Structure formats: C-alpha cells, structure tokens
C-alpha cells in the first residue's frame, strides 16, 4: 500500500484537501479573469461597464476568499516542495503545516483588512 500516505489523516490530509480545493477554485477564477481581461481591447466603456461586477460588494467578499486561496496554495506548495527535496522537512511536515498556517495568517489578515476597507470606502 505504497500510495496510502495521502489518507494518513490529520495535517497531511487536511493540507491535501485544502490544496486541491484552493487549486481548483483559483483555476476557475483564472478562466473568468482571462475572459474579462479580453474585453480591454473593446475600449474603456465596455471594460469599465464590466468592472461593475468587480465593484459589487458580494463579488468583493468572494475575492477576499480568492486571495486566501492563492496565499494558502502558494505557501502549502512551498511546503510540499520542501518535503520533496529535503528529508528533514518530511520528518517535520506537521510542524511545517502549522508554519504555513502562521505565515498565511500574517499575510492574509492585513490583506483582508485592506480589501474590506476599500470595499466599504
């Protein structure tokens, strides 16, 4: 059962699930974002009309979730790379997961506060 490590539970499994959910979520937004940025070529009026969606409060709250997904996926990705290339990291993958949580919080909380302030300006 060499592939069983994915479901060993606890931090490894939680980080695996979060990595997949955040990855697919960011991909979905990326596709939407490519489509909206394509409208830039049709001029200021067309593009700025479209941005009404981005300025709407519900979208801006969702966007804070998007930033959380990008930050977590990026940091946990670095944790996975450390585990891949350094046995010392593999031995401490749980501690590394909590390291990811701490750095994530330090990055996400200030960003979220700034985004909320801008949303209610």
């Amino acid at each position: 059962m060499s592939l069983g490590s994915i479901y060993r539970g606890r931090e490894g499994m939680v980080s695996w699930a979060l990595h997949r959910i955040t990855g697919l979520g960011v991909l979905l937004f990326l596709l939407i974002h490519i489509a909206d940025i394509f409208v830039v070529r049709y001029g200021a009026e067309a593009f700025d009309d479209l941005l009404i969606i981005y300025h709407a409060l519900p979208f801006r709250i969702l966007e804070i979730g998007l930033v959380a997904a990008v930050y977590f996926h990026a940091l946990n990705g670095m944790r996975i790379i450390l585990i891949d290339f350094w046995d010392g990291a593999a031995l401490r993958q749980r501690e590394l997961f909590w390291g990811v949580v701490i750095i994530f919080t330090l990055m996400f909380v200030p960003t979220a506060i700034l985004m909320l302030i801008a949303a209610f300006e």
Partner: protein
Amino acid sequence: MSSSLSRGGGRARPRGAGGFELFSWYFFRVSGVALLLLAVFHVIIMHVINTVNEIDHAFVVERWSQPFWQVYDFLLLTLALLHGVNGARVAVDDYIRSNGWRVAAYSALLLIALVFMVLGGLALVTFDPGQFESVAGR
C-alpha cells in the same frame, strides 16, 4: 526520499526515468516556485498597493504600455493556466475511473487550455496602447 516518510499531503515523484508524469511532477514544482512570486505579487499589486477602486481601463492601458508588465502578465497567464489545467487533470485521474468519461474530461481540459491560452495571449500580444492614447494620458 525514504518511502516510510509521510508525504505530508504531497505526491511522491513518479518512479522510472522520463515519461509525461515525471515531467508533470517537475513542472508543478518549477512553475509553482515561479507562480509564488508572479501570482502573490499580482495579488499584492492589485489589492494591497492599489485597490479595486483604482483599477479601470486606463490602469490596464498604462500597465500594458510597459513591456515589463506585458512579459510579466504573459508569464503569469501561461504558467498559471498550464499549472491549473494540469492540476485539474490530476483531479480527473483521481475521481473519474471510467475510461470513456476520463477521455472526455481530458478532451474538455485540453480544449479549455487551448481556448483560454489563445484568448489571454491575444489580449496581451495584440494589445495596442496607441489605440487608447487619449485614455492612457494621465
């Protein structure tokens, strides 16, 4: 890497030399490091340094008038799309067991990658800031 160590939720490097899966495994990691910088700075530029309130057509025209940001955004587009669609392919492998549906899902992902690569590529490469000069002059 000893197989007795926990992967911590990551995937083991595919065994054997060469092959697409090994290439894919390395691509995730190399593009991931690049995207850590490209995507996180993109978020910081758009939501920390600026806010959504300042971003409009003129903002994009000004940015894309500079080759640096055109190259930056092209790298971000290409690496994020390939990294993301390849990730979706791995998810398809995990959840879709029937061969027919898996081929259908692969085809859909390939089509999505092609269409959005062309859309994003066209948006950037054929962008002409001169067309919007009166708007960009700020």
